[in-house]
């Protein structure tokens, strides 16, 4: 396994984690833009633009693009989050150049008005599809409430109304500002021909005009910094839902904080799908259909996200018990046995996902896009091996799970 890096004169960075034994090559363009970079008038534009990128350039139609990806036998797709928009394809190594060229070319889309109106309908369908599914909007509502004005609280899809009001000119301007070469990383993993990758990038992206990129940092409300002891609660009533769904956010370390590894370790002890505190308390007994805890990090913020679902009658008791567990863990810590089991599981998952070139692409690409750092599988394993009980103590002091939090319920329960 080796790592290579090069920067084009216009600022576009090219990186690769190269594996001699891989049978496939994955390439991805990681654009540093997402819902947090939108204004109210452009709410949902990052994701809408991700769709529009596949609708064609001045010399490629949408059909051409779809056919070419399938010609290459590519597993190609894209996703948008609060902070990133990623376009990627996994192909057999002989198609690396064509796949890279194709994605590079479509990142300069024509943004035709007619396509824009048709694709708007698809986005509206996507919003309705998610709105019909668990957790019935509780996740977006909880994020918005917890972050209270901080841009990480803006939902990715937008709303039916916000997407209906985005204009094609607004999107064109957003694309020009956010898809500048200095804001994009081309990453590859697996069986990569790095010299050819850089050459392709020069040919396809070398003429892209460099533009200054505006800063993404902004002030944070105290609760996002781990302070206070507010307990905010909201409810979304969905009479037709069979189950009640709960999301609870409290503050955690951000993506640059060394304690983020300890946070993932703690989340695993608390809410992994097997063998965790929540598992023995809620899942093993059949008290809940689902109970989990994850740590999610952003550029300048982080959260512990607790999720629960059960029949509506039981949910209040489960919530009360959850708060007791979170307080207990904050005050009394966890056992050595819990720490060792979670360490073993984390290490195993790092090894398993490390051998999938396709999954490494996201780890390597996002890490570089956010912080210009490269971390190998061995680096990650080293960190996990060295996590200590005292790390959890510090975490509890800085980011108490029992501190300020927002909880949103969605389901048949009446307010």
């Amino acid at each position, binding site marked *: 396994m080796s790592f290579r890096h090069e920067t084009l004169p216009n600022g576009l960075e090219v990186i690769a984690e190269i594996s001699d034994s*891989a*049978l*496939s090559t994955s390439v991805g363009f990681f654009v540093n833009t997402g819902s947090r970079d939108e204004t109210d008038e452009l709410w949902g534009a990052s994701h809408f633009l991700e769709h529009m990128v*596949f609708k064609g350039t001045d010399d490629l139609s*949408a*059909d051409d693009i*779809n*056919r070419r*990806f*399938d*010609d*290459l*036998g590519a*597993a*190609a797709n894209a996703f948008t989050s609060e902070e990133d928009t990623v376009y990627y394809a*996994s*192909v*057999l190594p002989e198609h690396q150049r064509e796949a890279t060229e194709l994605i590079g070319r479509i990142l300069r889309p024509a943004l035709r008005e007619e396509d824009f109106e*048709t*694709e*708007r*309908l*698809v*986005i*509206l*369908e996507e919003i*309705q*599809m998610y*709105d*019909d*599914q*668990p957790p019935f909007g509780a996740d977006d509502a909880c994020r918005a409430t917890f972050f209270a004005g901080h841009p990480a609280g803006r939902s990715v899809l937008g709303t039916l109304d916000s997407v209906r009001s985005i204009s094609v000119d607004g999107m064109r301007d957003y694309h020009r500002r956010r898809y500048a070469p200095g804001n994009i990383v081309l990453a590859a993993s697996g069986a990569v021909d790095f010299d050819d990758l850089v050459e392709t990038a020069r040919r396809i992206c070398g003429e892209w005009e460099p533009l200054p990129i505006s800063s993404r940092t902004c002030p944070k409300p105290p609760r996002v910094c781990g302070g206070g002891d507010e307990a905010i609660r909201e409810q979304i009533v969905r*009479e*037709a839902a*069979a*189950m009640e769904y709960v999301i609870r956010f409290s503050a955690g370390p951000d993506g640059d904080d060394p304690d983020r590894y300890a946070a993932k370790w703690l989340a695993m002890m608390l809410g992994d799908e*097997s*063998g965790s505190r929540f*598992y023995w308390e809620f*899942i*093993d*007994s*059949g008290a809940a*259909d689902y109970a989990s805890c994850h740590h999610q990090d952003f550029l300048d913020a982080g959260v512990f996200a607790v999720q629960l679902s059960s029949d509506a009658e039981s949910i209040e008791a489960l919530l009360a018990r959850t708060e007791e567990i979170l307080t207990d863990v904050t005050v009394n810590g966890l056992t050595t*046995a819990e720490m*060792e*089991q*979670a360490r*073993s*599981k984390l*290490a*195993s*998952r790092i*090894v*398993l996902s*490390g*051998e*999938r*070139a*396709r999954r490494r692409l996201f780890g390597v690409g996002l890490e570089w896009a956010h912080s210009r750092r490269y971390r190998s599988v061995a680096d990650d394993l080293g960190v996990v091996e060295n996590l200590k009980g005292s790390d959890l103590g510090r975490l509890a002091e800085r980011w108490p799970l029992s501190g300020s939090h927002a909880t949103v319920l969605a389901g048949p329960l009446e307010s």
Partner: protein
Amino acid sequence: MKQTLLSATLDNGIVLLGEELPDLESVAVAFHAPAGGIHDGEGRCGLASLTSEMMLRGAGDRDSRQLVEDLAMAGINWSNAVSTTHATYFGAMVAKRLPEAVSIYADILRRPQLPADQFESGRQVVLQDLAGTDDDPSHRTLLALKKLVFPAPWGLPSEGLTADVEQLTPEVVEAFASTHVRPDGMIVAAAGRLDWPDFVKRMEAAFADWQPGTPVTVGQGERGGRWQHVEHDSQQTHIAIAWSAPPYRSDESYEATAALSVLGGGTSSRFFTEVRERRGLCYSVSAGYHTQRDFASAICYAGTSSDRAQQTLDVMLEEIERLPGSITEDELMRVKARAKSGLVMQQESSSARAGGIARQWYHLGRVRSLADELKRLDQLSVSSVRGWLESHPPTDLSIVSLGRHPLEVPRELSA
């Protein structure tokens, strides 16, 4: 590409399959017991699922908690699942931990404690899971379709029916486990960095003295009709369409799979182009191939807002009708490219290969080599796919819709 496929059969009938993938660090192992939903029995739909849930609640000398802790300490990423025909116990791990996995799974399969005092908890887990699927409209749509397409008990939901699960007792679970979790008919597949002779030796030591059971037959009941609307209070209407196709063991399944891939496989497929790209009717639309051992089905799916659902169904039906006689050379080339790169990329994943070789053994009684599969793909031609479609036109359609309002379907179905 060099491929090492291995197999052995123990005297009691357990089939051992292996594939060496020496470039990986991991190994994945799957124990497929012939204890799937088709053996539930009249009025006991969900018995296989509840039994599988109870099997993990202590085995051999390990109580419920010890079992889960042992799996965690060995870094085994485990899961269990019940399909129509099998109960599968799966684990992926760093290769050197495989001996521990064999020992733990020998306890689970041969010496489950099935503790009576945890029976109600186990039942609650299954019931919570069932209630959760009520909130998943696409899953419900496909469950309803399965009932129309496959005869009972193959068409019944392997996750169970609430009313039946409420009637199950510890005694029927115990009887089910001792009758159906048995060596004859069991397939154990391992793939990854595998020491095959050591694996076979350990499997023999742990399983060879397990006595086979008496043969079991399953009677074939009725199909559920041709057309059904399920009332559901949702913004979107979900549509599923099916017709019969040759089972996987038939050589023609390659032609059938290719035809369905043209219809609704990649982003250049007819459905994606006509339903989503041209008309913006929905976010997700697809067609695929689903097989049991003795029968198989083409299954098409779309989810779309209620006021555009009729148009979506009409366009899908037109595309299905147009398919025979219209497949082009370009389309088939793309199908082959996608299938080929899918096959090669599977070789990068121990989990995918452990699943793949077991599935082939179940359907064919042997494992096809990658070279054979690629050769058969190459033999696909426009005339072979057209020929198959002309002799098996998609005329015996079954249709399910789920949403606020029923749709108009072709008269021969609703009659």
